[in-house]
């Protein structure tokens, strides 16, 4: 007999009889379930948001020169041609990069500088204000850098130490956030010719290949590697999906950690349920004695108390789940402004999971009191007052 209606009724009525006490114990479970569910939902939304941002760059292969210690030879024009051959119709963008001292008005500091073919700028970044670079003239600056140095279209930047070259800002880039390869928010983009005239031509620091059909990414990667690294390792082909995996793994462990912190409140709740159940057992020793004397088996006595724990757990978890749905909705709309993150199965999954954990915790807290109730000697229990 797994489920007995009358034993369940007994448990239910005892909960009702000690309503305040049961309510307080259930509130603990509400908070515990709320903590782990809300944390889990937030972590999952964060993970989804970041990976959807990052996966915009997931179709990109980045090719770096294979460096042995000491040499900083870049990718040569010849290698670039080979890459272009093996990349088929996919756009290939050679990028030079470095960093230098910059001065704007009286402020100075360091910034990253990229050299790009003006025709390729559109594939890498979007211009927010002003125009893109044309010919050899002008520079584009990232929004964060522009803000820091108070630059606008028309400002002049001096690159290099005193007497360095002065260059005019023709455009400010749109914020691009964090993509695995280029970080343009804090950088200056100049034309390739301007870059080589200042820093010399040491080849390209990297080459980006934008694979238009994402399912072809492995094939393109293989083609390039076969072509370039057949005899000896000359380039490293970096696939941003690996980076994406790493990021989401890290976010996953962060959200697990945060959930574990939420779990502490569930442990506290478990202790209070445990306490309530022990109280319930010691108040009902006489009743247990009566039940045993009229032929109720030990395991059936245990069931009464387990039912009671499950009733508390279920009620608490249900309320906790509802509250965390509301709370999670508010949190996601406030933090990400994107409700599809909230309605994603990965996020909503935390609601039944949190409830399940809440009920399981209550059940476990009820096991010892229930066994204790069952082990009572019927004669001594009958004699109790």
């Amino acid at each position, binding site marked *: *007999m797994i489920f*007995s*209606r*009358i034993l369940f*009724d*007994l448990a239910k*009525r*005892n909960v009702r*009889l000690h309503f305040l006490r049961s309510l307080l114990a259930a509130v603990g479970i509400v908070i515990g379930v709320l903590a782990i569910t809300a944390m889990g939902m937030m972590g999952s939304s964060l993970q989804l948001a970041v990976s959807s941002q990052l996966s915009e760059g997931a179709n990109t292969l980045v090719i770096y020169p294979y460096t042995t210690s000491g040499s900083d030879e870049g990718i040569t024009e010849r290698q670039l041609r080979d890459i272009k051959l093996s990349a088929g119709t996919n756009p290939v963008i050679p990028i030079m990069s470095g960093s230098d001292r910059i001065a704007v008005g009286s402020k100075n500091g360091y910034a990253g500088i990229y050299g790009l073919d003006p025709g390729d700028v559109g594939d890498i970044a979007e211009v927010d204000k002003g125009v893109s670079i044309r010919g050899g003239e002008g520079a584009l600056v990232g929004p964060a850098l522009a803000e820091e140095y108070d630059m606008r279209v028309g400002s002049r930047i001096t690159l290099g130490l005193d007497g360095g070259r002065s260059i005019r800002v023709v455009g400010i880039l749109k914020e691009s956030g964090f993509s695995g390869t280029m970080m343009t928010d804090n950088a200056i983009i100049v034309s390739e010719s301007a870059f080589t005239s200042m820093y010399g031509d040491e080849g390209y620091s990297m080459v980006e290949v934008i694979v238009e059909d994402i399912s072809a990414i492995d094939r393109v990667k293989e083609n390039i590697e076969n072509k370039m690294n057949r005899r000896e390792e000359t380039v490293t082909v970096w696939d941003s999906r690996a980076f994406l995996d790493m990021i989401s793994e890290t976010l996953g462990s962060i959200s697990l950690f945060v959930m574990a912190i939420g779990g502490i409140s569930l442990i506290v709740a478990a202790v209070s349920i445990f306490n309530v159940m022990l109280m319930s057992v010691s108040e009902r020793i*006489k*009743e247990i*004695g*009566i*039940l*045993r*004397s*009229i*032929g*109720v*088996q*030990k395991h*059936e006595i245990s069931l009464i108390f387990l039912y009671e724990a499950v009733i508390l757990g279920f009620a608490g978890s249900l309320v906790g789940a509802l509250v965390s749905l509301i709370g999670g909705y508010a949190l996601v709309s406030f933090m990400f402004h994107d409700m599809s993150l909230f309605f994603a199965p990965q996020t909503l999954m935390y609601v039944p999971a949190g409830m399940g954990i809440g009920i399981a915790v209550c059940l476990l807290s009820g096991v010892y009191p229930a066994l204790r109730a069952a082990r009572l000697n*019927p*004669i001594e229990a*009958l004699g109790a007052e």
Partner: protein
Amino acid sequence: MNRQASQARSWHPGTPGGNNRMGTPVIELEEVRKVYPRLAGDVVALNGVSFAIEEGEFVAIMGASGSGKSTLLNQIGCLDVPTSGRLLIDGRDIRNMSDFDLTNLRRDAIGFIFQKFNLIPLLTAYENVELPLIMKKGQRDVSGRPIDLLRQVGLEGEMITHTPPELSGGQQQRVAIARALANDPKILLADEPTGNLDSKTGTQIMDLLANLHEEGRTIVMVTHDRKTAAYADRVITISDGRIA
């Protein structure tokens, strides 16, 4: 009122050992000892008790407090087992039975009536009577037996939907008797059934038990009250763990 019944059974010799071949002993004790081990030394609660009770008998067990009569009732009620000796309930020796089997024996063969009624306060009168039936069958009663039993002990109507705290002592004891009868047990065990009742209500309850006896129930009753004991066919007096 039970004189007739007493006379009808007056052939019973009441000798210990249960060698009577004319009836079937429903309770049979042979040299039953119960020893409680204590740090300060063993306490011998029962020291070699032998007697038999036939089906349909009404036996009163008397004795001073501490004489061992409660221990004796607990053994007969299968709440505890003897340390040594033989104790047969309905032909089965309970000394080596498991807790599970003892519990089932209590459920099926024994009906308890307590001094303090001992109803489940969370259940209504009806549910208290229904409970042993549910424990036996594993489902709610559909036969109407709890209502019949409650009517038999003089409770009906709206009364049976009340919980024990809403009933008087006499009414509670009536519910308890109905509960004891639920699974049609071979033996009714009454432990000071009138101890918590005023004398008028006590007399009503004893009349009820006498009626049940007349219908052929076997009743074993512990009491210290001679007037109550007078309802029984036979009195067994216990003193210092032995039959006096």
